[in-house]
C-alpha cells in the first residue's frame, strides 16, 4: 500500500473497505484514516471474506464496491446479511452499477446507503458519519 501510514491515532470505529480500484481504495483509506477510523482495506470480496472469517476482528461498518474480480460485492452482502454474527453490520455500497438496475432487488433491506460513482470523498465521509450515527446506540 502506498498511503497506508496515517499519523492519526486510530481509536475511532472500525471500517472494512472493499474496492478493487487501487487509486480509489487508497484515496478513501487515507481520507477515512485521517478522520480517525480504524480501517482495513480489501482489494476484492474474497480478501474481505477472509478478513471477516478471521477471529478477533470485526468491523462496525462495511463499505463495498459491487463489481469486483474473484468475489463480488453482491456475494459479500449475501454472506454478511446471512451470517447471524455479522448481519447487524451496516453496509454502504459505492458502485457504478445503477441503483435502479435489475440486480438491485437482491440488495433490498441489506444496504444502509447506496452511492453511485462518481462520488466525492466528502460524500463518502458524510455517509459514513450518518450511517454510524443511525446505528442502535450510535453516536449523537
Amino acid at each position, binding site marked *: 500500500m502506498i498511503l497506508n501510514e496515517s499519523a492519526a491515532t486510530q481509536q475511532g470505529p472500525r471500517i472494512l473497505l472493499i474496492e478493487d480500484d487501487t487509486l480509489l481504495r487508497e484515496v478513501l483509506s487515507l481520507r477515512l484514516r485521517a478522520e480517525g477510523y480504524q480501517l482495513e482495506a480489501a482489494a476484492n470480496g474474497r480478501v474481505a471474506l477472509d478478513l471477516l472469517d478471521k477471529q478477533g476482528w470485526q468491523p462496525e461498518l462495511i463499505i463495498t464496491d459491487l463489481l469486483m474480480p474473484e468475489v463480488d460485492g453482491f456475494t459479500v452482502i449475501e454472506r454478511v446479511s446471512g451470517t447471524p454474527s455479522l448481519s447487524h453490520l451496516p453496509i454502504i455500497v459505492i458502485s457504478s452499477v*445503477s441503483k*435502479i438496475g435489475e440486480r438491485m432487488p437482491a440488495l433490498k433491506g441489506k444496504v444502509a446507503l447506496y452511492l453511485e460513482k462518481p462520488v466525492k470523498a466528502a460524500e463518502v465521509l458524510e455517509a459514513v458519519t450518518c450511517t454510524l450515527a443511525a446505528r442502535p446506540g450510535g453516536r449523537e
Partner: protein
Amino acid sequence: MMIIEESRAEVTLPPAIGAPRILVVDDNTDNLLLLETILRGHQFVVETATNGLEALAAVEQNPPSLVLLDVMMPGLDGYEVARRLKANPDLPFVPIILVTAKNDLSDKIHGLEQGADDFLSKPVNTGELLARVRALLRLKGAQDDLQQKHVELSEVNQQLKQSEVLREELVHMITHDLRGPLTGLVGALELMEDHTLGPLTAGQEQFVRLALNNCTTLSNMIGDLLEVYRLESGRSELECEPVNMGALVEQAVSQVAGAAVERRLELRNNIGQDLPLVLADRGKLTRVLSNLLGNAVKYTDSGSITLSAEPWNGRLTPQARGVCPPAARSILVKIVDTGPGIPDDAREHLFEKFFRVRGQQGSKQVVGTGLGLNFCKQVVEAHGGCIWVESGPDGSGSAFHFTLPLYDTE
C-alpha cells in the same frame, strides 16, 4: 368417362426451367392423363397422385405451385385433403382448385370453407382450366413475394434489434467502466487540491484545478449519456417534489458563473424567489438548467446571457409551433444569449441525440457529447413540460424556452 369437353391438339414442348409445378390428384387414371396432357401442353410441370394420402405426402415433401384436386375419391376425399393441407402451418401458400361433378352451391361453399381456393366443374373446359390455374398462380406469385419480403424484413428487424442491444451494452460498458476510474482520479486530485498530501506550488495548484475541471466535464458527459439512455428506456424515475425555481436556478447559475466570468460574459439572473412552485426532480432539473446555461456560455463570444421566468400566458410564438402544447397552468423559463443564433434548418433537429450545429462560418468546434440538449428535452418532457428554441436572423442570439406544469396545491 371423358371429362374433357374440348381439347386442341398441340405440339408438346418441354416445360421451361422454373415452370410452375402442378399436382393433379384424381383416383380415375383416365382423368389424370387428360388433365396432365392439357397442362403439359401448356408448359406446366405435372405431377400426379391417385388418392388423398399420396397427395398429402407429395405436397409435404415438395410443395407444388398449385393442386388440382378431385373431390370424390375413396378414402380421404378432396374436402379433407384441402382441409389438412391448409391446416399445416409449415406449408407455404399452395392454391387448391377442387375439380368436381357436384354443382350444388352448398358443395362449393363447403369446399371453400375447407380451404379450397377455387372450383372447376366437370366436364372441364380447357380454356377455363388454364385461366383459373393462371389466375391462382398470379395470386401465389404475389403471395410468395409478400412472404419473401416479410422474411427479409424480419431479418432486418432482427439485425436492428441486435445492434440496439449491442449499443445499449456499449453505453452500459462505457459508463460503468469510465465512472469507476474517474472516481479515484477525482479523489486523488482533491487530496492534492486540499493539501492533504502537503503544500503545492502555485503552478501545481493551477494544474490540479484545471485537471479537476476536466474531470467535472467528463463526469457530466458520462452523466448525460447514462441519463439519456435511462430516460429513453423508461428506467429513469423522477424523484419529484415541490420546487422553488428561484432557488434551483441559483444553484445552476453558480455552476457556470466561473466560465462566464472567464469569457467576459454578463450573466443576468432575473428569476426571483416569488414564483409559484413546480413539481420537479431537483437534481435533473438543475442539470437541465446548467446544460442550457453551459451551452449559452460556450457558444456566446460576447455580450450577455439572461435568465427569466414567468407564468406562461398560454400563447405559443410561431417558432414554438409543433412542440406539444404546454399545460394551461405552467411556468415558462427563458435563457437568452447574444451568441450566433441557431440556423433555421438546424432548429428542428437541435434536440435530437448526437445532433451538432455545424458548417457555420467562423464558428468554432466546441466539445460535447451531443447529448446535452437531448437530455434537456427528455427531462423536461418527462416532467410534462415542453422545450423549444427561438432564434432570429444570424447574429441575433438564441432564446431557449421550456415550460413546467405548476405544482397544484389542491
